[in-house]
């Protein structure tokens, strides 16, 4: 249902926009109905930028994003409301998602005013109560309170309930549990996974591989705006091929084993401009001459794609 085709995002930075920052480079992937896809990357990998482009919060520099065959950059401002009936987002910081001086349930009133002005108050209240129960909240306990009186987990559930009121098709979940406490994290994650049974697609943006592995069928590994590896979550986690993916998985703190290898420390300042070769060249322990040329992403086995010369060379042999 969602399809990204060679999407790029370029920011002009510096005085008079003299320099270019490539936040997203030539990214293509798709999400099917009822599928959870994880977009995994460090900060600065462009994962949130992709989410924002899908939500039409920022423009697309190059390429196209289509939903059910419709190019989203061609939607007129007037029709954007119809778009948001289908696609909604939940963001990382639950406290920043609420206007601190209003009650938290104002987000439901706004949906009522903007999307369903004809529904009478009584029916609407029932609808809100149902949505809240769907996300595991007791309406009596949470309605009529200010954001600071609710916990981070409750606030994120509120936002999911808000999206459910709209009968959406796609939810962009941008790091929605990274600021929550461990004890409630998993419940919000389960809730997200349950949405699948309603036929919802989820773009799950995260930096935490264990979470991505827990809920998604497909995963995309992003580094400095480029896709390095993508495919079924199972294949990527059981058999990570790209050196970057291998490093990420080895760095995840686990409760069953301790860290083995050392991480190579980054001693460079912010990255600008377009690297001509592989984006991971500077940090890659296996980098060789060929890596100065940009590696194309190739399919190494069914539903498992990697952009790495070392992998593609060994495939040829």
């Amino acid at each position: 249902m969602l399809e990204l085709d060679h999407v790029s995002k370029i920011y002009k930075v510096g005085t008079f926009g003299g320099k270019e920052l490539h936040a997203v480079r030539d990214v293509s992937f798709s999400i099917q109905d009822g599928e959870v896809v994880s977009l995994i990357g460090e900060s600065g990998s462009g994962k949130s930028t992709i989410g924002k482009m899908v939500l039409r919060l920022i423009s697309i520099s190059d390429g196209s994003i289509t939903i059910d065959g419709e190019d989203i950059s061609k939607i007129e401002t007037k029709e954007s409301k119809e778009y948001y009936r289908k696609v909604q987002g939940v963001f990382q910081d639950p406290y920043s998602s609420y206007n601190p001086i209003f009650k938290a349930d104002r987000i439901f009133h706004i949906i009522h005013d903007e999307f369903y002005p004809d529904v009478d108050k009584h029916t609407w209240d029932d609808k809100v109560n149902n949505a809240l129960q769907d996300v595991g909240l007791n309406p009596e306990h949470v309605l009529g309170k200010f954001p600071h009186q609710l916990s981070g987990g409750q606030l994120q559930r509120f936002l999911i309930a808000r999206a459910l009121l709209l009968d959406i098709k796609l939810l962009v979940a941008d790091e929605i549990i990274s600021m929550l406490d461990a004890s409630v994290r998993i419940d919000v994650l389960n809730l997200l996974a349950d949405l699948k049974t309603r036929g919802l697609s989820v773009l799950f943006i995260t930096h935490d591989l264990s979470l991505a592995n827990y809920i998604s069928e497909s995963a995309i590994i992003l580094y400095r705006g480029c896709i390095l590896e993508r495919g079924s979550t199972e294949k990527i986690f059981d058999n990570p091929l790209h050196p970057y993916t291998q490093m990420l998985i080895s760095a995840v703190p686990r409760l069953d084993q301790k860290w083995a290898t050392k991480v190579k420390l980054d001693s460079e300042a912010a990255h600008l401009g377009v690297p001509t070769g592989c984006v991971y060249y500077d940090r890659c322990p296996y980098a060789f001459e060929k890596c100065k040329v940009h590696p194309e992403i190739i399919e190494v086995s069914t539903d498992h794609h990697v952009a790495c010369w070392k992998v593609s060379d060994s495939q040829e042999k």
Partner: protein
Amino acid sequence: MSLQIENLSVYYQTLKGDVHALEDITLDVKLGEIMGLAGESGCGKTTLCQSLIYLNPPMKYMTGRVMLNGNELPIWDAEKMNQHRFRDISIIPQYAMNALNPIRKIGPMIRDLLTSKKVDYKDRLPELKHRLDVVNLPHDVLGMYPFELSGGMKQRMVMVLSTLLDPTLLIADEITSALDVASQKAVSELLVKFLDEGCCKSAIFITHDISILYQIANTITVMYAGYLAEKASTETIIHSPRHPYTKLLIASLPKIGVKYSEKHLKGIPGHPPLLLNPPIGCRFRDRCPLAFEKCTEVPPFVEIEKDHFIACWREGSHA
């Protein structure tokens, strides 16, 4: 013994009354020990460390005492604490990225800081350079402005800075929370390295991520709603926790390889109590699957086996 805290209570003053943020904390940190401090947000872990560094209004000192190297720290007196801060006890703040003055070069900023503590910059320079090598930063950074460094580099710079006078106790307040997995690992390992090299003599590592503590901490202390819940060696806490809260907390962590389609993990139902007019007795009572009548009294923090402390009527009373 590096740090000893006895019966420390600290409240926050608000218009509606006191918020009981820390209640009767008794614990110690040995020399060479990295103590991990874990708990949900609002459990008092940051308050505990804040009160060791700079106890300022609306925080209010209630009872208890704090000993560092056998000397009592005047934590209730923000002025007197000045001679201990940075020298004996130092902190890497949560937002280390923003801790550097954006309009000063890093070298001169460090010089000012050292001068204010009556230490000569030139004397300390060789050691400073050595430590930059340890964290893999070029010596040129001393002539740079903070914006020329990446986030991870700034974080490492602040780590070098806070430990420059070899403090007895180093407090790392959620320093990995905002980082990516790779940087998380790098920073955590650096902390261990710092301790090995004698840049600090003991450390408290605050985080809500127990799996990082498992990697680097010697002991783990779990806090809940202002009270200590359990303290033991890392292995014990992770593999054989006794407190119901610790057990539930560890069970809720997604492990790599576990998938939703195969196994549903469970969080801890309910919420921590509000600490303004907190409930009497054990504060975990409402969420605890094992709660019984006795839990209406505050359980004492007792040693049930060697170096394993716990505050729970169910588990503690067996000892």
